[in-house]
């Protein structure tokens, strides 16, 4: 029983981090109509920058600095490679694939091919439901939950957030109302990138820092985005947490690969039967 509780909590924590990253993917898809294959690598860059910056200035500064750097990186990438290709929309997926190669190789060239580990900024364990648990994991879940809540507050309470929702809803009307659509698109891409890097720096102490990390996390994020409904932000969060908990629990009884296969099969059914996601109509 202990192991089930532990795996459920692990799933919940990991689900919140995945939700944070998948939110970035989802908002970029919803607004710019881009399948961003490099999004997993944005997360990976976040873990790497987290490792490097935390190593020199400490973790708490990294936690603030890395998403800011991610925002700038997103702005640069949007301006240089996304905007020139946005007219040939189906090819943006190829562009982001090229981007993914560049990011991975750039990290491999600088950090080296070996996976690294990062020390947790908060040491110690806590006794919870009869098991000893790493305190940092609870912090990580808290940071992720706060960031997600902050993101939704930003979207619903600020002018810029309202603009983003307006452009998502109806681009032409938004343009007619005088909303700077190009600027909003650039900002959204940068925001999505920043969320992935923030997820990276939060996850860095509980996962390995590796130039291939993006390849592993990308399918998980896509599953959350698809099952939640492409572009449906609340659905994405719900699906990410649900999937991670499900995979956690299933892996207690069966092979983790089987857990992964089963969630992929669920995803195919959702895509074919309810392409707008499981929660379409429920939260929109």
């Amino acid at each position, binding site marked *: 029983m202990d192991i089930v509780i532990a795996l459920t909590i692990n799933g919940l924590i990991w689900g919140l981090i995945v939700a944070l990253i998948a939110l970035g993917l989802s908002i970029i898809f919803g607004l710019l109509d881009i399948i961003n*294959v490099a999004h997993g690598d944005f997360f990976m860059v976040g873990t790497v920058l987290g490792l490097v910056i935390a190593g020199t200035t400490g973790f708490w500064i990294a936690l603030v600095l890395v998403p800011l750097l991610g925002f700038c990186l997103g702005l640069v990438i949007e301006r240089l490679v996304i905007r020139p290709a946005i007219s040939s929309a*189906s*090819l943006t*997926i190829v*562009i982001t694939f090229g981007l993914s*190669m560049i990011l991975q190789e750039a990290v491999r060239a600088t950090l080296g091919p070996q996976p690294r580990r990062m020390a947790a900024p908060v040491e110690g364990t806590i006794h919870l439901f009869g098991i000893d648990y790493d305190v940092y994991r609870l912090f990580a879940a808290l940071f992720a939950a706060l960031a997600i809540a902050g993101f939704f507050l930003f979207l619903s309470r600020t002018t810029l957030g309202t603009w983003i929702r307006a452009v998502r809803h109806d681009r032409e009307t938004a343009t007619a109302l005088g909303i700077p659509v190009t600027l909003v698109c650039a900002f959204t891409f940068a925001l999505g990138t920043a969320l992935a890097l923030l997820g990276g720096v939060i996850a860095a102490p509980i996962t390995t820092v590796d130039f291939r990390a993006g390849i592993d996390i990308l399918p998980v994020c896509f599953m959350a985005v698809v099952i939640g409904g492409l572009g449906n932000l609340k659905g994405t969060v719900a699906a990410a947490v649900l999937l991670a908990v499900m995979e956690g629990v299933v892996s207690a009884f069966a092979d983790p690969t089987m857990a992964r*296969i089963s969630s992929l099969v669920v995803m195919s059914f959702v895509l074919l039967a309810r392409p707008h996601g499981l929660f379409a109509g429920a939260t929109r």
Partner: protein
Amino acid sequence: MRAAGIALIVALVAALASLPLVLPAFGLTFWVNVVAEILIWSLLAASVNLLFGYVGLLSFGQALYFGFGMYGTAIGISMFGLGLWPALALGIVASTGMAAVAGAFAVRLTWHYFAIITVVFSLIFYFVAMSQKWLTGGDDGLSFSAPPILEAAGWMLTDRTTQYYFIFLVCLACYALLALVVASPLGLRFAAVRENEKRAQLIGINVYATRWIAFVLAGFIAGVGGALLALFGRYASASYMFYHVSGEAVVWAIVGGAGTLLGPLVGTALLIIFREVVSGLWENYLMAVGAITILVVIFAPKGLVGSLTALVRRGESEEREHLENPGIPATPATARAEAE
């Protein structure tokens, strides 16, 4: 123009046919195998191109059918003790059958949804192949020794030249098939579906069936490629089914020129030669491949062959150019959105 095109193709075929005789004379024996590998991988790119360039569906999961062709052949030889041709047939049947089943679901979707479902299908079987080690060898793969091509004549794949001609002829047959299909009424239906789904439907084309046929044919071509690679390397591995392999094939097809017959071959050749030359000198050469991909998509979205053809044909009338060499669809998203 047509005569020039035929002359170019004849010259290319003649050049490829004479390579194993010419290259060793210059001490470049190693490159015979590189060209053979290019021919094999170009089939995977050609299968991406058939779907994207001719029917307008971007698949990010063609490695699945490549992997099925590969494992069908490898398992046929190593477990059932089949000869070369029956094993090849098993691989091709496996990949085509898989494409027929997966395609029946996948082509119900278009656009981004199609790209995602193809990745999901390929990921499912990637994980299955990784976990069923007794059958597939998982990450380590399956090694086997290839049976002779023709026992009576003593043709073995271990002979570099024989192997090259075997691969060359099979690939030539695939490209001939593709050329025939593209020029046939079916090929015109492909183009009609790609250009405007709604109008194609209105003139009586069964859009779903047309897409499905293209999907099965693409699975067949990818399967032949996979089966050839299994025979070429005497090896099959689950890692060839990962979505990164599919992604590379998309890059080759688009850099070469989607919607042209030779584009995938040119793209594959350039990037594999680039890899062979540069990877020895610069470990992180993939950065350059990524940059090349991005630059091509931004500045020459028709790819190298497509841009070159467009340049040559600039003098000809606009309408004829569009009919004969439609290239890739400019913005299928908006076109479709308007149609609906």
